[in-house]
C-alpha cells in the first residue's frame, strides 16, 4: 500500500508539472500577463519570465525525483503560487477573483508533499493537514463557482448531457453539484471515511477528463494534466484512511 501511495504522489507531481509547464510554454502565463499589462514591464522580459517559469514547472519534478532536493519542490510550489496570485491580481474574469482558493490544491501540493515525505510523524501530520486544507478549499470554491453558474461549467454540462439538458436545467444541476462540492469541501477537514475521499477522487478525475472530452486533446490535454491534484490528493487521503480502517479491522 505504501508503495502505491508513493507512486500516486510522484505521478501527481509529474502530471501537475507537465500540465502547467506545458500550458505556459504554449500560451502567455498569468505572471507574464500581469507584469506586461499591469506593471508595464517590457514584453522581452515578461516572455523570458514565462519561459523560465515553464522550465521550472517542467523540470523541477524530474529533478526532485533524481536528487530528492526539497528546493525543487519549493521552486515548483512557488511558481504555481505566483500563477494563482497573478490570476487573482489580473482579475479579468469573475472566477479569477477566487483563484487563490480554487487553485490551492495545485500550489500547495509540492509543499504538502515535501512535508509528507519528510519521514517523521509530525511532518506527515502537517503534510496531510495541508493536503486536506487545499482539497477542501478547491472543492468549496469550485462548488461556489458551480453554484453561481460559471459559464464554462454550464457549457461543460450542456456538452456532456447533449440534448438531455437545456441551459436552465444545467444551471439547476450545477447548483446541486455546487452544494455537494461545498459540503464535501467542508467535511473533508473533519471526516476520516475513505469512501468520501474516493468519491472526491472520482469527481476530481471526472472533471479533469471533461477538459479533453470537451475541448479535444489538443486544447484539453494539458488542462487535464495540471488538475492531477484534484483527484490525486483525495485518492491519497482515501488510501490512507482505507489503510487505517483495514488496520483497525484486523486489530
Amino acid at each position, binding site marked *: 500500500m505504501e508503495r502505491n501511495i508513493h507512486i500516486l504522489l510522484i505521478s501527481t507531481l509529474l502530471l501537475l508539472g507537465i500540465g502547467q509547464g506545458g500550458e505556459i510554454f504554449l500560451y502567455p502565463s498569468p505572471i507574464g500577463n500581469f507584469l506586461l499589462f499591469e506593471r508595464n514591464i517590457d*514584453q522581452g522580459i515578461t516572455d523570458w519570465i514565462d519561459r523560465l517559469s515553464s522550465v521550472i514547472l517542467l523540470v523541477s519534478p524530474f529533478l526532485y525525483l533524481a536528487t530528492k532536493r526539497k528546493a525543487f519542490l519549493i521552486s515548483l510550489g512557488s511558481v504555481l503560487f505566483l500563477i494563482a496570485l497573478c490570476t487573482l491580481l489580473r482579475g479579468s474574469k469573475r472566477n479569477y477573483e477566487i483563484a487563490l482558493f480554487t487553485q490551492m490544491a495545485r500550489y500547495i501540493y509540492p509543499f504538502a508533499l515535501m512535508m509528507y515525505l519528510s519521514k517523521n510523524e509530525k511532518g506527515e501530520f502537517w503534510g496531510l493537514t495541508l493536503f486536506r486544507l487545499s482539497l477542501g478549499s478547491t472543492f468549496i470554491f469550485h462548488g461556489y463557482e458551480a453554484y453561481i453558474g460559471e*459559464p464554462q461549467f454550464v*457549457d461543460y454540462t450542456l456538452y456532456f448531457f447533449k440534448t438531455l439538458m437545456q441551459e436552465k436545467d444545467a444551471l439547476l444541476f450545477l447548483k446541486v453539484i455546487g452544494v455537494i462540492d461545498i459540503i464535501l469541501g467542508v467535511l473533508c477537514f473533519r471526516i476520516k471515511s475513505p469512501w468520501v475521499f474516493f468519491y472526491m477522487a472520482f469527481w476530481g478525475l471526472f472533471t479533469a477528463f471533461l477538459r479533453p472530452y470537451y475541448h479535444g486533446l489538443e486544447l484539453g490535454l494539458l488542462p487535464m494534466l495540471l488538475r492531477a491534484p484534484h483527484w490525486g490528493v483525495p485518492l491519497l487521503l482515501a488510501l490512507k484512511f482505507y489503510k487505517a480502517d483495514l488496520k483497525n479491522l484486523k486489530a
Partner: protein
Amino acid sequence: MRVLIGVIFLSLISFNLHSKEYFPKEIKHFRLVWHEDPATEATLAWNTKREIYKENYCYMSKTPKKGNLKAYELVQRAPYNRYLSTTNKADIGLRYFYHACVFKNLSPSTKYYFVVRSGSHVSKELHFITAPKDPKRSFKLIFGGDSRDNLPNIRRPRRPGINKLLAKMVEKDPSILALVHGGDYVFFGMIFRDFRQWFRDHLLTITKDGRFLPVVPTRGNHEKNVELFNDLFIMHRKSLKNSYYITKINNLYIFNLNTSIAMGGLQKIWLETHLRKYAKKGNWVFPNYHEPAWPAVKKPSDALKHFVPLFDKYQVDLVFESDGHSLKKTVPIYKNKKDLKKGIIYLGEGGLGVGQRKPKNKNSWFLKKPGFAMAADHFFLASMKKDSAEIKVISPQCKYELITRWNCLKTKVIDKFKLKHRAR
C-alpha cells in the same frame, strides 16, 4: 519647477475642457447608444449625482434649435431614472443616478440635433446621423475593442489620443456612423469608478461641429458587473439583457455576441436561429464578439467550438474579435483549414487604447500570408455598399507629448481588402 507644474496644470485643464464645452458639470458621462435598429432608434443616457433632479428630459429635432427647448420637435421625459447597479466598496461616495431616453420611429439617414436636461441644467446642442434604411446608400462603421488602459498607464492613457483621431476621421468623412465596440472598455469593469473616465474620453470623439459618435456595445470579460454594464448601455429590454443581439443597418447584420456567458446553450440556439434567418444572399453578416476563436496570443475561446461551425455553415462574411491586445488578420478559414473560396477572415484583437503585445501564435497556420499578426494599436473601418464592402485595417500612430499627451493624429493603413457577397 513652477513652469513644469504650470504645464501639467494646463494640460489637465485642456483635457477636461472638451466635456465642459458641451455638458454642464451636473450632466455627466453622456452616451449615445445604438442597439438593434439604429435607422429608427437611438438611446441617449447620462448620469447625475444622486436623484436630485425630478425633471430629466431629452429634446430632439431634425433642424438645429440652438438649445431653445420649446422649439424641439421630439421631447421625451427620461423613462429610465435609477441608481447605477454598483454596490462595490470602491464606488462608495459616487452614488450616480442614470437617466435615459429611448427614441423610436426616427427617420433613417437623418441628422438629429439633441440636448438633454436635468432640472435647470441643459447640455449644449449636439447632433448625430441615424443609420440608413436604403440599401443603395453606402455608410461606414468603425470596429474596435479593448479601450481599457494598462494599469500604471492610467495617468498616461492612450485612449484619449485615439478618440481624438476618431473625431478627426468623422469630421473628414461624415459617412462614418458609429463605433462598434468589441468589449473591454475599462480595466475595473466591476465598478463604475473606472467607467467615468471612459465616458469622459468618449466625448473626445465629438467633432468640431458637434457631431456625436454613437456606440454599439458588446460585452468583454472585464465588464464583470452585468447589471452595471446594462445600466450604462441601457441594455435592459429582453432582447438586450444577455448582451447578444443583432444591429441591423441596411443589409448589414452585426451579430454582437457575448463570450462572457455560456456559449453552447441558449446563445448558440439564438445564433443559429438568427443566422438561418438573416444569412441569406445579398445580406452582409458580421459577427462581433470579445474572446477570439482564432487567437494570435491566447488559447482559443469557446467561440471556436460553438460559434465557428455556425459561421462556416451559414457562411458569414467577416468576423471581428478582440481581447488579445494585438493586431491580427487570419487567412480565410473554413472547417479549420485555409480555404480561399469558402473561408472566413477573422479580424482582431483589440487595440483602442490597451497596450499591445507581440503575438505568441504568430507562426500559426491561420496567421500566415495573406494573414498577419503584430503589435500595433488598431481599429477597422468598414465601408459598406449594397454589393461590396471594403475593410481597412488602420493603425493610429501615437506619440507621447507632455501637453497633448498621446498625439495620434496620423494613421497607417496596414491592410485593406474587399468583400463580395457570398453565394449562400
